[in-house]
C-alpha cells in the first residue's frame, strides 16, 4: 500500500512539469514514433530491412549494445572515486549513477531484442522454462549478468528514493553492501561482454586478450562523460552541491582512462602491424579500407580524431578547468567511444569475412530508426527517473506533500 502511494507520487511527478519539460517529452515522443515505424517495418519483413547480411551478421545493433553496457558499467564505477576523494554528496552520486546504469542496461537489452530474428522466442534463453546454455555460451552469461546487475541497481535506487520519500533513514549497511557488490559486477558485465567477442577464434580482430581491458578503459572515458555533464546541469537547477574540484577530478580520471586506452590500443596496433600476419587485414580495413572499399574509414578516423582532441582538452589543466572546453571534451569523447563501439569494433570483426570476402556494411535507415527509438525511449525513461529523483532528493517531495495534496483535492471535492 505504501509502495503504491510511492508509485502514485512518482507518476504524478512525471506527468507534471515546466513547458521546457513538455517540449522535451514531445521531442522524444516524435523520435520514438518515427523510430518505432522503422522498427515495425523490420518486425514485419525481417532483418532483411537492415544492412546486415551473412558476411556481416552482427553490426550496428550489437555495437550499440556493447556501448551501452560500457555506460552502465562506468556509471557505477564513479562511486569509487566519490568514496576515495570523499566528495560529499555520495548518496546523490550513487543515485544518479545507478539511474544511468539502470537505463543503460535496459537499453542494451533492448538492442539485443531488436537484433534477434525471433524476439518472441526470447523465453528460450531463460533458465527453467527455456534451455539456457550455461556455462558454455557467453551470451547466456552476459544475459544473466546484465539481469542481475539491473536487479541490484533497481533495488538500491528504489530503496533510497523510497526511504527519502517516506522521510526515513535508508538502510545504510545494505546500500553500501550492494553498491560494493555492484562495483565488481560493473567490471563483470563489461568483461563478459568483451568475452562475448573475445573468445571467437574465427574472428582474429577480436581474439586478443587486450579486448576486455580496452573495453573497460573506453567505458571509463564515455560513462563519466555523461555524468560530468549531468552533474553540472543538476548543480544549476537544484541545490545539488558538487564542488568544481570533484568535477575536475572526474575529468582527470577520464584522462587516465583515455591514456590507458591509448596505450592498450597502441600495444595492439604495434603487435598487429609489426608482425604483419594475415590478421592485419581487419585493421587495414578499419583504418585505410581495402581496395575501393573504404566506406568505414570515415567512422574510424572521426572516432580517433574526436578522441584525441578530447584527450588533449582534458589533459591540459587549463582547458580541463574551463567548463566550456571541458564540456566540449566530454561530448567529443562520448561521441568517439560511441562510434568506436557502434561501428569500429564490430564491423572489422566481420570484414573481410571468414572466407576473405568483403561485404561493405553501413547501417540502413531501419537500423538507424530503430536505434533512435531505443535511445529516445531510454532518454525518456532516464528523464522520468531523474525527475523523480530530483524532486524527492532536492525538492523535498515526500509523503507529506502527497497527503497535503490529497487533502486539498478532497476539500475541493467537498465544496
Amino acid at each position, binding site marked *: 500500500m505504501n509502495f503504491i502511494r510511492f508509485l502514485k507520487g512518482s507518476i504524478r511527478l512525471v506527468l507534471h512539469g515546466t513547458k521546457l519539460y513538455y517540449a522535451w517529452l514531445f521531442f522524444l515522443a516524435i523520435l520514438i514514433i518515427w523510430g518505432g515505424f522503422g522498427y515495425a517495418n523490420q518486425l514485419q519483413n525481417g532483418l*532483411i530491412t537492415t544492412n546486415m*547480411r*551473412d*558476411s556481416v551478421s552482427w553490426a550496428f545493433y550489437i555495437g550499440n549494445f556493447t556501448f551501452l553496457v560500457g555506460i552502465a558499467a562506468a556509471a557505477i564505477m564513479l562511486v569509487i572515486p566519490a568514496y576515495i576523494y570523499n566528495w560529499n554528496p555520495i548518496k546523490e552520486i550513487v543515485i544518479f549513477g545507478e539511474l544511468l546504469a539502470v537505463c543503460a542496461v535496459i537499453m542494451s537489452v533492448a538492442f539485443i531484442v531488436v537484433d534477434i530474428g525471433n524476439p518472441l522466442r526470447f523465453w528460450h534463453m531463460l533458465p527453467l522454462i527455456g534451455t539456457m546454455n550455461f556455462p558454455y555460451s557467453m551470451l547466456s552469461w552476459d544475459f544473466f549478468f546484465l539481469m542481475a546487475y539491473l536487479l541490484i541497481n533497481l533495488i538500491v535506487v528504489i530503496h533510497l528514493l523510497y526511504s527519502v520519500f517516506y522521510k526515513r533513514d535508508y538502510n545504510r549497511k545494505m546500500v553500501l553492501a550492494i553498491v560494493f557488490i555492484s562495483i565488481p559486477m560493473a567490471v563483470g558485465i563489461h568483461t563478459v561482454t568483451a568475452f562475448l567477442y573475445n573468445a571467437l577464434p574465427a574472428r582474429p580482430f577480436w581474439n586478443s586478450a587486450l579486448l576486455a581491458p580496452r573495453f573497460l578503459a573506453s567505458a571509463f572515458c564515455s560513462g563519466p562523460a555523461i555524468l560530468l555533464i549531468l552533474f553540472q546541469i543538476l548543480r544549476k537547477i537544484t541545490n545539488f552541491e558538487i564542488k568544481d574540484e570533484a568535477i575536475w577530478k572526474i575529468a582527470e580520471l577520464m584522462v587516465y582512462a583515455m591514456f590507458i586506452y591509448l596505450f592498450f590500443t597502441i600495444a595492439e596496433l604495434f603487435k598487429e602491424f609489426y608482425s604483419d600476419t594475415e590478421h592485419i587485414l581487419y585493421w587495414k580495413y578499419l583504418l585505410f579500407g581495402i581496395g575501393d572499399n573504404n566506406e568505414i574509414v570515415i567512422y574510424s578516423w572521426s572516432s580517433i580524431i574526436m578522441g584525441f582532441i578530447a584527450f588533449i582538452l582534458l589533459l591540459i589543466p587549463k582547458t580541463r578547468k574551463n567548463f566550456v572546453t571541458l564540456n566540449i571534451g566530454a561530448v567529443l569523447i562520448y561521441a568517439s567511444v560511441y562510434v568506436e563501439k557502434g561501428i569500429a569494433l564490430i564491423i572489422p570483426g566481420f570484414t573481410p569475412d571468414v572466407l576473405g570476402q568483403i*561485404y*561493405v556494411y553501413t547501417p540502413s535507415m531501419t537500423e538507424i530508426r530503430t536505434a533512435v527509438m531505443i535511445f529516445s525511449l531510454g532518454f525518456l525513461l532516464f528523464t522520468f527517473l531523474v525527475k523523480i529523483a530530483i524532486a524527492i532528493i532536492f525538492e523535498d517531495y515526500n509523503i507529506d506533500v502527497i497527503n497535503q495534496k490529497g487533502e486539498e483535492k478532497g476539500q475541493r471535492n467537498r465544496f
Partner: protein
Amino acid sequence: MKNQNKKLSVLFLAFFTAMAIFSGCLNDNKIDQINTEMQSIQSDGKYTEIAVEQPPFSIGIFPCSDCHSLIEPNPARRELVEMHDDIDEIFHHDSENRWCLDCHDTNSRDSLKLASGKLLDFKESYKLCGQCHGNKLRDWKVGVHGKRTGNWNGEKEYLLCVHCHDPHAPKFKELMPEPPPVRQEDIH
C-alpha cells in the same frame, strides 16, 4: 566382425538385385536421373572382377566388326583420312608413341587388347587404362578416383574411366559454370 558379416550380406544382396535396379528404372529424384545412362559395376568386396554395362559408344559405331569384317586389316601406322579422321584429328593421348591398334585389336575388332596381347571386352576397358594409370585404377576401384553413386554403406554404382575421359583425348573437358551467387549488396 559383426560389421563385416553385415557388410557381406549387404554385398550379396547388392549382387542379386543390381541388374534389376539399374536397368534404367532410376527415377527417385533429379539427382538419380543424371545417372540413368551410367553404367553399373558390382564389386565382390575385394575389387577384383567388376561387372559392367554398356560403355558410352558413339551412336551407330559399334560393333566395329560391322564394317571391319569386310576390310583387310592394315597394321601400318598411318594418318587416317577416309574414316575416323575425326578421331585422328582430336587424338591426344601419347599420340607420339601410340595409335589405334595399340589398344584396339587388329583382328578381333570388337575387342580391346592389353599390351600382353590379351583381348579385352569394352566393358573391361578400365583394365586397359590401368596398364599405364595403375595408381588411378587403384584409386578408382576403391571409389576415390572417379565417381560412385548409390549408398555409402551399400551398393554403389561406378562410372567407367571413359564416361568422363574421352579415351582418344582424355583431358577433362571444360564446363560452363553455374551462375555466381547473388551479391549480398543486391539481396533486398
